[in-house]
């Protein structure tokens, strides 16, 4: 990866080099401390309130630690079908990532390797697609989904979510595949490799960075998706996590601690991913912004 911090270059060189990169920057330090407070206070208030009994939540100071912490709120949320929401979201995420990869990789491969008017037109379609807001097409998609008899199924969420994750995925992949040098393809051609074998033995292995960006991006689109589930599903069966959270507002009403417990629980799966694969997650997100 090219974005590795410069600490390796830095361990060797002269004192002057160290001097200007390591110099403390009090103004920036203060600024980042302020942002730290902005990030921490809501997170802390959320955790603390989610551990407070419902009766005490509205009386005390929300920034004080709970006097008698309780897991009741978490129990309330878990007993109201949280696991079902989570597994639906996981299914949607896996399906979306699968569809996006299977469709985008050949597309990007053609766009980079076969430069003719067809592949250029395809690429331009996806450049244009970046600007289409999903909101703008929900009404006709609703019609389409109903006609396909997919209303109120997980597929109704999966297919449009995958389609709208494609433009950015294709552009990220094209950017990555462009870096695979022509010489390597020539070397494989000397061995008599077909385009298909080149794709699997050369392009995909060398494009791992871009591919992991796409996996993370597509999974997060599925994870965060709210509008498609809101419009295309209604029953408990295909309900995903975001929509479930939204429904807790009316279900728990003024039970703010339970509401916050559900928010905390919804963050745990990504937190686990973050702990297990921090480097891939952070690198992948950086990759969405271009190389």
């Amino acid at each position, binding site marked *: 990866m090219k974005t590795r911090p410069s600490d390796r270059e830095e361990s060797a060189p002269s004192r002057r080099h160290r001097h200007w990169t390591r110099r403390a920057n009090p103004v920036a330090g203060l600024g980042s401390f302020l942002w730290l407070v*902005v990030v921490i206070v809501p997170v802390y208030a959320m955790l603390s309130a989610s551990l407070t009994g419902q009766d005490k939540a509205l009386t005390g100071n929300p920034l004080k630690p709970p006097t008698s912490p309780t897991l009741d709120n978490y129990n309330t949320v878990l007993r109201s079908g949280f696991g079902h929401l989570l597994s639906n979201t996981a299914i949607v995420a896996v399906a979306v990532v699968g569809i996006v990869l299977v*469709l985008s990789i050949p597309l990007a491969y053609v766009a980079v390797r076969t430069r003719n008017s067809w592949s250029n037109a395809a690429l331009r379609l996806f450049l244009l697609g970046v600007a289409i807001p999903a909101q703008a*097409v929900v*009404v006709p998609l609703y019609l389409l989904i109903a006609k396909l008899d997919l209303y109120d199924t997980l597929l109704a969420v999966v297919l449009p979510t995958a389609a709208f994750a494609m433009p950015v995925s294709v552009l990220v992949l094209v950017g990555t595949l462009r870096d695979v040098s022509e010489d390597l393809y020539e070397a494989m051609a000397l061995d008599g490799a077909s385009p298909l074998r080149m794709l699997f033995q050369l392009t995909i292995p060398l494009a791992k960075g871009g591919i992991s960006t796409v996996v993370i991006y597509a999974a997060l689109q599925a994870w965060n998706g709210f509008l498609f589930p809101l419009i295309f599903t209604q029953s408990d069966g295909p309900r995903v996590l975001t929509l479930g959270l939204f429904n807790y507002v009316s279900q728990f009403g003024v039970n703010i601690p339970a509401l916050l417990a559900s928010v905390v629980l919804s963050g745990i799966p990504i937190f686990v991913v973050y702990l297990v694969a*921090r480097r891939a997650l952070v690198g992948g997100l950086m990759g969405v912004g271009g190389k």
Partner: protein
Amino acid sequence: MSATLGKSTTLDESASLDKRPGARVGRPHAVWALPGVLFFTFFAIVPMALAFYLSFTRWDGLGDPQLVGLANWQKLLDDPRLTQSLWLTVSLTVASWVFQTVVALLLGVWAAGPQRNRAVLSAVFFVPLLLSSTAVALLFYALLDPNFGIIQKDTLGSSSGAFLAIVFVGGWQFIPFHTLIYQGGARQIPQVLYQAAAIDGAGRYRQFFSITLPQLRNTITTSTVLIVVGSLTYFETVLILTKGGPGTDTAILPYLMYEAGFKTYDFGYASAIASFLVLAATGLSLLLVRLSGFGTMRSTREGM
């Protein structure tokens, strides 16, 4: 890079064996792109075209759409909520852009430094990214509840309070992501530029404005496009935090469309709003791409 170097040092005899080595390399047929193109066309392009079509019809979701000419567009242009919503969208976009870009750019450049404490803080800054936008909106819905008590006032009850809350919540959620983008961008700025500037006696602020900012040009464009297109579509935040209120003071275009379509079942009118949104989003992105020269993909490393 290294591969291009390798090419220039290829032995002369191999070059004479095959004058056009690229000619024999098999290339995938354009048909390989077809499934992806068809899929995207079916679920994004066709619906977009359908939205334009439906905007000229009256349709309540049952039966068949009736063509009514420009009635929905006329209604849209006469709708006082449209002017309000446009103005709201512009101020929301500008406020979000300023807030998110300033904070994310500074934090990102700062976090790109190799210091240990910066790495630790970056990990904390990442926390909002663990939550979906729905979860973030719910979190602030709860925290801003006057009964809950962090802020005793009814923030969401006043129109400026509701507006600022949406800008803040959007920033809280997306700044970590843009910080990462800027961090990645800043780390790719060649260190030699700073070394040269330091030898020339440029101070820290001079270096920031003369090296860091110009070198981050493409990153700024990418991040700006994402912020602008993103803030056109803060749907969850508005739906959960304010429901467009107080009154219609925070009813952004997607929210108006949602109400017209899925609350009052006026799909024709909803499609007119949606088409307007597509035009606005496409126009804005094209404008940004044109203004920044991003389309030509000029490298920031030019002349090096």
